[in-house]
């Protein structure tokens, strides 16, 4: 596939409002998703952008279209969401195959239900799917954040009491 062909496909998706497409040929498999609420996305190595692009413009966006067979998901392509979060790359480097639990809302991160209570989880703990990992306080409401998978807590990425933004990775969990 040439970059031009890929662009035509992507433009067609945007024009027709298609949100997901999978295309398989003997040479490659291409999966493209637009927008949506993908919270956990395994990025192919080397596609994630640097955490904070320096303000020295222009900043070329990664295109990731040069090598057929290594296209999914096509980060930085027209109309597509790259779904990168700050620190995601470094965190992923530490634990291949880990699942990131990301902040679904903006707020303050707490590891325990109360200041004097023990933390919900520690690194190395085994957690079940649906188990509470932390609290994010937003507008004086305590929102419990649950694990999306069963596994081992490999890394807690945020300190107690720190503000978190939408999509920020909070935990790395090695699925079992």
């Amino acid at each position, binding site marked *: 596939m040439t970059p031009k062909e890929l662009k035509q496909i992507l433009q067609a998706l945007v024009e027709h409002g298609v949100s997901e497409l999978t295309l398989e040929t003997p040479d490659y498999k291409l999966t493209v998703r637009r927008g949506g609420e993908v919270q956990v996305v395994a990025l192919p190595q080397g596609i994630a952008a640097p955490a904070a*692009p320096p303000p020295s413009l*222009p*900043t*070329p966006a990664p295109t990731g279209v040069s090598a057929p067979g290594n296209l999914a998901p096509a980060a930085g392509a027209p109309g597509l969401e790259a*779904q990168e979060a700050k620190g995601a790359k470094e965190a992923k480097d530490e634990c291949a195959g880990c699942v990131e639990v990301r902040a679904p809302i*903006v707020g303050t991160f707490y590891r325990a239900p109360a200041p004097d209570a023990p933390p919900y989880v520690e690194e190395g703990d085994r957690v079940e799917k649906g188990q509470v990992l932390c609290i994010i306080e*937003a507008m004086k409401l305590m929102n419990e954040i649950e694990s999306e998978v069963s596994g081992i807590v490999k890394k807690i990425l945020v300190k107690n009491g720190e503000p978190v*933004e*939408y999509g920020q990775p909070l935990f790395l969990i090695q699925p079992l």
Partner: protein
Amino acid sequence: MKKVLIANRGEIALRIIRAAKELGIKTVVAHSTADEKSLPVLLADEAICIGPPPSGQSYLNIPNLLSAAIVTGADAIHPGYGFLAENATFAEMCRDHGITFIGPTPENMRALGDKATARKVAREAGVPTVPGTDELTSVEEAKRAAQEIGYPVILKASAGGGGRGMRLVHTEEELERAVQQAQEEARAAFGNPAIYLEKYIEEPKHIEIQVLGDGENVIHLWERDCSIQRRHQKLLEEAPSTLPWETRKAIAEAAARLARHVGYVSAGTLEFLVDKEGNFYFIEMNTRIQVEHPVTEMITGIDLVQAQFRIAMGEKLWLKQEEVEVRGHAIEVRVNAEDPEKGFRPSIGKVETLLFPGGPGIRVDSHLYAGYQIPPHYDSLIAKIIAWAPTREEAIKRMERALSETVIEGPGLKTTIPFHQKVLQNAFFRRGAVYTNFVARRMEM
């Protein structure tokens, strides 16, 4: 005020950052995941992600925005335009959380929010509105009303919109049949035959008055002519208008009177239709900073966004009406990522080559940079180019010169610049013969 959270994106987020920086106020840009690499995010002191690309989950997400202000320690929020700028509930929630909302009060917004309430308030303040009736119950009533208002009149469906159930009536002979047709059309289109009657303003100019208020005093910063529109979307704005001095003064004073009547705070705009005889009718008020505010800044030298900040910090108006001086003429074109050759279809792409115009009297407000990928989730405005010159003729020439210098290129990327070049060359435009159906009638678009 030490730090402001900007609850917006694109060129207006950048405009607010610029105003805040010059006032020594720190900036935090709240952004969606689609705007992670946008210029406002790169240029603000801080940035915080507040949600995924759809604006309902990010730029309109009140809990996330307020949390973002709280966790970043921002003591004020600037809403820009669109999104939550005219949401009284949001302004109220900011107040409840001790965060300064940079804009009018929730009470201001409610008094002027919907058209029916705003019309009532206007009448109280002695400002004319388009004459019309409530729902009609009989043909006789329609005849009486039309006679009183004067032909031509237009019949409109109460439930309506989009031209369905609308009938233009020039004489009384036509009225009875038109009422029946309009009712039938309204019934067919909306399942409700109710119609009302309004004076038809032929080829009106869309004139809007910029005001600034501090809750007690209100001054006006004269008008902008926004008649160049396509499907109610403004494309080119200029100030001053080509209306006679007496008309301009009368509209501006009426606007200030209405804003004063509601104790208006911050920057706002009152929209009027002006007919060929110079009669003017108030339509609605925009309780926010507007896209086209730079043309007023260019002719008055007053920074409207900084004025919003200063008023929000409690400063009383530092200018008297007679101190507002108008110099020269300014024109703004809205450069949209749209293809004017294909019905103004949105054109999404990556900006590969970018060169903005410069030289005397030119201002560009834009969040573009070479390499920027225009996201498909938001509106298509990518740049505003503003030309100032001592006279309208010179401003038109200067704008033509500026547009001929501008390069915004990328694969498949189209902009509205060729359309603006045609407008600027149009003989009717050149002599100021502009009205809201100019684009349809003179440009055939």
